[in-house]
């Protein structure tokens, strides 16, 4: 499905600020894998996301999706396989356009865009059905500008826009971190439901240790550009937050330092 081999990325190479963002990353996802990623500040979690989505290109190494080597493709050409939800609720939607227009843009992710109408009555019907499952009443507001929605509503819409076309890979980059606890819970719940139901191969970066353990079937821990621990489903089930932090200290030799860490 998704395979990274020997992926390495340096920031500011050859300058005094040179930094290893990713070093020799080998990672294989099976179809339907739901992987949570945790790690310190600067561990390389976001770089990993950016390398997969095409925002950055690896210095060396290969990224394959379904057998295609894609590390040289620009971001917009990879979107055929990959959908994303960003941390910033403002980032995933176009505020001056309506809910149905945003959904229509998301619907075209895998298609060649043409001079056909963006929003048709059959699409509108489908959008309404999908919006209903979010359970926050957006199905009655198809014509409302997205800029009028709250952060939580926008993030729920972003999640729907990323998933309803069934991407091969779903990337979630701390997508609940900017929300208040109640809204974060709603988005987490929706994420879990949607990913399970559609069996999406998912990579989720999170600061929430409890969430990292509870969600998904595999947990990856990163430090200084490397993957230091890869916990499979069986071991992950019984894990507690303190065990997880202890494990991190034992392997990396320092405490998990993350200014936004949420323990549970």
């Amino acid at each position: 499905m998704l395979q990274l081999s020997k992926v390495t990325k340096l920031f500011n190479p050859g300058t005094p600020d040179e930094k290893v963002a990713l070093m020799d990353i080998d990672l294989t996802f099976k179809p339907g894998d739901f992987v949570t990623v945790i790690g310190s500040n600067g561990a390389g979690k976001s770089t990993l996301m950016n390398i997969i989505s095409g925002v950055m290109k690896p210095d060396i190494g290969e990224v394959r999706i379904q057998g295609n080597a894609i590390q040289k493709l620009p971001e917009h050409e990879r979107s055929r396989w990959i959908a994303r939800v960003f941390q910033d609720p403002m980032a995933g939607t176009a505020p001056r356009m309506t809910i149905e227009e945003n959904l229509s843009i998301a619907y075209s992710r895998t298609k060649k865009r043409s001079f056909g109408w963006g929003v048709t009555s059959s699409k509108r019907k489908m959008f309404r059905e999908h919006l209903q499952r979010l359970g926050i009443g957006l199905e009655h507001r198809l014509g409302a500008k997205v800029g009028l929605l709250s952060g939580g509503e926008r993030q729920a819409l972003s999640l729907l826009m990323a998933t309803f076309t069934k991407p091969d890979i779903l990337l979630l980059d701390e997508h609940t971190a900017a929300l208040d606890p109640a809204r974060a819970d709603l988005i987490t719940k929706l994420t879990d439901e949607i990913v399970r139901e559609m069996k999406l191969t998912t990579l989720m970066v999170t600061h929430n240790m409890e969430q990292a353990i509870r969600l998904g079937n595999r947990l990856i821990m990163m430090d200084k550009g490397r993957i230091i621990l890869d916990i499979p489903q069986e071991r992950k089930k019984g894990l507690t937050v303190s065990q997880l932090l202890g494990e991190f200290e034992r392997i990396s030799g320092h405490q998990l330092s993350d200014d936004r860490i949420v323990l549970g």
Partner: protein
Amino acid sequence: MLQPWLHSIEGATHIGLVYAIMALGVYITYRILDFPDLTVDGSFTTGGAVAAIMITQGYNPWLATGAAFAAGLAAGACTGLLHTKGKINGLLSGILMMIALYSINLRIMGKPNIGFYNEASLFSEISKNPVTYMIVLVAAAFFIKFLLDSFLHTDIGLALRATGDNARMIRSFGANTDITTVVGVSVSNGLVALSGALIAQQQGVTDINMGVGMIVAGLASVIIGEAIFGARTVFRATLAVVFGAIVYRIIYAVALRMEMNPQDMKLITAVIVIVALVLPTIQRALKNRGLARKRSSELSAAASSSSKGGAV
């Protein structure tokens, strides 16, 4: 006594309806793509130049007008490519193309001024009857408005609008924002050149300086239109732009009637645009400050009354 006034307002409306096409082009770059494109000053003249030279050489005026539109598309595409592929700042890309077009326009025309009053143009027959003339101009402006509305509601049009609204988002959904930007700037300048070609035929003359200040006139039309008629949807916004262009031309005509110096008109236009841009900012700041004060005092009143309640 009112006769000359009515007459100049009628004339202003005739011109305004044609300038509306240019203003729609400015709307695409300024409002949709969020890309202030100064190419307009050059491409407007390009449209007039192509139309003038082809008509004086005996080509069909329809063909000449179509060629002017195509020349505008090409000029806009160059600006778009400079910005997206050449990574040149948007304002500078427009300025560079505007300067380049000045020389190109002179090359097309061969001299700085071409009069062709006596040649058959698109307007030479219909302008004889004022009623038909007005109907045809209204129909033409609204035809292009509706065409643009439709385009902006296609899949490509949605991608174009999202490019100006949230480029990162539309890239993550598979659109190449370089291409959408080039398409947008290109269509914009196509409309501007079309407007230039039609104005040249209305006046029977193309002058190398006819495009000077066109971007500011276009912005004035967009801003005046939106202020008076609102811009909640694309349909409303383009309608506002068309009316804005007419209102702008009427203001212009009235100012000339009141015997203002025509040389001061560009200054007046600039002042109109500045006022229209600054006023909403001031208004918003005042409103926000008022709202913050009101909410803060409400909350502090609520807090002090509940703390009193606790003490009892």
